[in-house]
């Protein structure tokens, strides 16, 4: 079929109609890049989350012996893990996505393809790796720590989709900003550390003083983490209005980020 290359590259037709194969290639490249030169990449994919989970279990169950109201000590490990993995995926996805343009400058200057694909490949690979790890962790938790409510699983998927959309949208915006202001790249690390402690991952919202709670609710991660717990630990699978809100919120951020990116990606290339 004849086509114009330009329309493929930057035309009005959505890229994914034409470039799924390229996207897959970029994505596998990102994932391979993590384990390049290592003999058994997939092995590490499984081992990393298991080591991390074991570490948290030892620290919180045997050393701190944390007890939350209404939760056993083992329950706390589950409590943290359900919040921690989505966070890890989100944090790494945004950090990798933010540097995707500057990191792939050589490719961008030599080949014609939609630029957002390198950002999505970088973020997407992080989500893929860590959400796979999340699935493994959930299985281990279920069989060895505390049984989870699998019936709520269908509701977990739209929640994670909202998280992925939020991460992709933020990555698009940050990738442009990092290209223009290289200093931002250095600031992202500390900002994410603050964001981590400002999210109810190591503590429940109930422990936060009343006066600070409205602030916590401004954080979209609060909702994701709390809802994941209510789904998996309490089995509250019935859809709530906030589920739709999250999905639309995530979609909104994603579309806003994409619009922003498309708007400035052409002149931004000249700063690479």
């Amino acid at each position, binding site marked *: 079929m004849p086509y*114009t*290359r330009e329309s493929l590259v930057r035309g009005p037709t959505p890229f994914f109609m*034409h*470039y799924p194969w390229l996207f897959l290639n970029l994505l596998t490249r990102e994932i391979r890049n993590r384990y390049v030169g290592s003999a058994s990449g997939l092995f590490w994919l499984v081992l990393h989350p298991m080591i991390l989970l074991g570490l948290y279990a030892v620290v919180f169950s045997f050393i701190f012996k944390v007890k939350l109201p209404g939760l056993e000590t083992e329950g706390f490990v589950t409590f943290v893990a359900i919040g921690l993995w989505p966070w890890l995926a989100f944090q790494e996805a945004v950090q990798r996505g933010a540097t995707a343009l500057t990191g792939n400058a050589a*490719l961008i200057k*030599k*080949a014609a393809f939609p630029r957002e694909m390198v950002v999505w490949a970088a973020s997407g690979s992080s989500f893929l790796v860590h959400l796979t790890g999340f699935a493994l962790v959930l299985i281990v938790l279920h069989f060895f720590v505390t049984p989870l409510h699998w019936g709520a699983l269908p509701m977990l998927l739209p929640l994670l989709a909202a998280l992925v959309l939020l991460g992709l949208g933020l990555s698009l915006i940050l990738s442009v*900003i990092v290209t*223009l202001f290289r200093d931002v790249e250095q600031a992202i690390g500390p900002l994410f550390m603050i964001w981590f402690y400002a999210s109810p991952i190591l503590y429940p919202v109930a422990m936060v003083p009343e006066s600070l709670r409205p602030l916590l609710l401004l954080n979209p991660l609060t909702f994701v983490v709390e809802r994941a717990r209510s789904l998996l630990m309490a089995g509250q699978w019935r859809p709530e209005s906030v589920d739709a809100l999250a999905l639309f919120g995530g979609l909104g951020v994603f579309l806003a980020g994409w619009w922003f990116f498309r708007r400035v990606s052409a*002149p931004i290339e000249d700063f690479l």
Partner: protein
Amino acid sequence: MTGRERDPIAQPGAPELPQPLIALTGVGKHYPQVGQGGGRLRTLWSMLRGREDYPVYRALQDIDLTVHRGESLGLIGENGAGKSTLLKIIAGVGKPSTGSVRVNGRIGALLELGAGFHPEYTGRQNIQLAAALMGMERQEVRERIESIIAFADIGEHIDQPIKHYSSGMVVRLGFAVATAMQPDVLITDEVLAVGDESFQKRCIAWMEDYLSNGGTLLLCSHGMFHIQKLCKKALWIHQGRNRMYGDAGDVTRAYLVYHEEKQREAKAASSLQRGQAGQYEMTRFWLEDVAGRPLSTVGMGGEIVVQGHIHSPDGRIPVVAIGILRLDGMPIFGLTSDISGFRPNPLGQDLFGFSLTLEHLNLLPGRYAIRAHAMDPEGMRHFDTVECIFDVLGQTRELGLCRLAHHWAPGKLGT
């Protein structure tokens, strides 16, 4: 908004219109020149509003260009003139700041061989990504990967990481991928002859086959020979603008003349000296045709009459030396009046004249200079230099400075 209007995808079954392969209108490329800090925030704001009110460097301006199928185009120009920028814009790698670009076909770009290859990955993995970047679908890649590997002639190393490849092997791989998809336009940036001897031969064979099958080449080269041989048209870009567009032969000749003149200007101050008072001196010097009209151009094989007056301070008959040279100073032919046994004729008090007719001027088209020196009667010293410039016009693809008398005949077996 400029540069964003694109062709919709051609509908299958729609009648094929004889539209140009590449059409550029008013294309310009501006690179932002913005410092660090606050200026960049304002720049981002301008970009968001789609305005360009930040300082820019104009690498290209007002380029209009139409390339039809089978009409290969050569891009020439000095370093930094904007050739590569233009090629990148046509290849879709960069977006024009002004104007619009339409490309109705598949582009294979060899902007930098081996770009986008990852050293840790095997040749096969790199082919996959490079092919995907060029817009090939999974099915196409599957079908062609073996022929790509065969053409690149990498052998069993194809499953080794390319960090272990020689640079020639990487180059071969790049060429093989770019040409595998049978592009409608092949864009190359000074990378025609790559790899070792046998691969070069295959490259050239491929190129000839490609061109004879109606392929179109966009070539950027400093080798005028390549441009003249491979391209029908040429575009000369000078300081980001279209300086000349037309037949490849004409444009390359004009470009060479420009360079010869540039070299000549550098030499001029030292080589051209005026005669001093009280010495032999060429007082007038001009060119005319056989009918006596002033002349500045002549057709190939035509006639030029060189006329001049010489002042002789002591009334003795001077000698005149005349030379034809290319503008950069390369001598072509020279003689003096005493070699030929000609004695300038007296025209008045201490003034002598001469007229030299050059018949069958078989210089190839281009710009040349005729120089003359007034010499003492012994023909030992020359005192001054005067010069006239003329152009030889004509259409030929012959190479060199002048056309030697020749004819072709059937060959025979060696002795």
